[in-house]
């Protein structure tokens, strides 16, 4: 059973001076799971995620992502994960295709792989017509879905999504979750943070974070029974 756990975290802590942003959190995520982090702004969701993705160095505790140590092997982890940050992080002045090519190239994809990926993404997102347009000109919902697709350009085992649906309308949110389910069906593990309660219901399991600590962790149904 152990080797199906793609994320294992034990007592992970992040301090900024006296302030404890993430306070000894422990949990495991199974392969192929959609794992949600629910909590208010400032509860420590993003900081926790940044530690798992190697963007932030944990103050103490240990963790493994995709079989690699978060403290010592963060660069190895980066090869195997995708990440979509809260801030929109594609290049607005590059076209849709150029963004895909750039991130594909950074992840070491071959020319052919990039070409295949590009047509695949454009087709799936129905963006073929705007492939040569700068990303700046796309509506926010499209941008978000493109950013999600680009974050998986190298077919990572785990995808981290930091409030991916912030600021988009409910319709786009639904579309976005459809895309998340699709990725999950391909066997990808999804780790997503949100502060929307209704979105939490789409997850297989959720953990509720309050001021740096995990206060509850279970499937949405079980949690509903408990509270």
């Amino acid at each position, binding site marked *: 059973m152990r080797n199906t756990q793609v994320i294992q975290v034990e007592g992970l802590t992040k301090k900024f001076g006296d302030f404890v942003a993430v306070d000894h959190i422990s949990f495991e995520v199974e392969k192929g799971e959609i794992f949600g982090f629910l909590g208010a702004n400032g509860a420590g969701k993003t900081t926790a995620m940044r530690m798992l993705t190697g963007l*932030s*160095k944990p103050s103490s505790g240990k963790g493994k992502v995709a079989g690699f140590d978060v403290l010592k092997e963060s660069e190895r982890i980066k090869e195997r994960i995708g990440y979509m940050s809260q*801030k929109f992080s594609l290049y607005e002045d590059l076209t849709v295709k150029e963004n895909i090519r750039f991130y594909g190239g950074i992840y070491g994809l071959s020319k052919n792989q990039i070409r295949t990926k590009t047509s695949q993404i454009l087709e799936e997102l129905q963006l073929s017509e705007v492939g040569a347009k700068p990303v700046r000109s796309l509506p926010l919902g499209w941008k978000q879905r493109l950013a999600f697709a680009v974050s998986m350009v190298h077919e990572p085992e785990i995808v981290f999504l930091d409030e991916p649906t912030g600021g988009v309308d409910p319709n786009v949110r639904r579309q976005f979750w459809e895309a998340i389910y699709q990725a999950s069906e391909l066997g990808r593990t999804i780790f997503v943070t949100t502060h929307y309660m209704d979105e939490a219901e789409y997850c297989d399991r959720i953990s509720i974070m309050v001021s740096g600590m995990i206060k509850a962790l279970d499937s949405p149904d079980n949690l509903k029974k408990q509270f």
Partner: protein
Amino acid sequence: MRRLRFLIQKEFIQIFRNKALLPMMTLLPIIQLIILSNAASNEVKDVRIAVVDHDQSEISRALSNKIMANDRFSLLAAPFNKKEALDLMQLDEVDIVLEVPPDFEKQLYRGEAPQLQTLVNAINGQQATVGSGYLNGIIATLNKEIRRNEPLFFSGLPKHNEPVVVTSNNWYNPELDYPHFMAPGILAELTALLTIVLTAMNTVREREIGTIEQINVTPIKKWEFILGKLVPFLCLGLVLLTVGLIASKLIFDIPIRGNIGLIFAYAVVNLICVLGFGLLISNFAETQQQAIFVAFFFVLIFVLMCGLFTPIDSMPKWAQYATIPNPLAHFISVSRKVLLKGSGLADIKMEFVYTFILALLFNAAAVWSYKKQE
């Protein structure tokens, strides 16, 4: 290495797509070059002088005429007393007051060596020293003329007060053409400054927008990121230098006596050096304002201490040493030496060595201080 190609490609696309950047890199430098090369001149052209002539003799009038005839001086007033003249200086109307004592002519013919007094407004030190230098020249010429024209009067005098005559020739810039001297320096300065500021801003912009985080979450190597920023801006800097050189040649007809390839070879090393510095700054700045502010702090020191406006040789010793880590000082020295003097590689060896070491240091520091993980 493949990653690097994608980074560079992306940077070039962004540079060419940025509507403000290319004119900024070509038009602005040319405008600056024209303005600064003409305006930033140490040449003293118009010295305003008041002559207080207590003597009113033939010789004192000849002196006044000589001053008036010299196109560097304009004789502004000939007041009758010194106080009037000093008032004019107080009002900043005149730069030099020349006082001719009474009985000047009489004393001169008696061989008593009369004294002329010059009072120089030294608020502008340059104007003062150069101006009084010119004036002394005029007086010396007059002195010689009198002796030549009136040999009878002076034949009895001892010859020992005949001064040693120093003649000087201006090598490398025989017409003392200021733009010839300034343009190569300003060109070097502009190239270095624009590239420092642009790289620093560019990288910090990625931090502000958040794209840098997306890059940090990829397995990219730190040196790849730094090199990916360095190469495109190096090319941009070389374009700027080419444009500037062509403009200086066309507008000021600056001499290009040395090997132009040598200039470019040195410029590559120098640009890598200043780009490394710009990237180093960007690693410590959170916002573009911060980056600009810090960049300006150093840029100002670099510019004021690079030998462009004030010669390094006349700085205090410690300040002369302080120009060694200043890449601009080396760039200016090289461009002047190669362009005006026709110096070869051997003559600019030290500049190459210093710049190379600085380039290594700055870039190593830039790679080291670039944090993929907080």
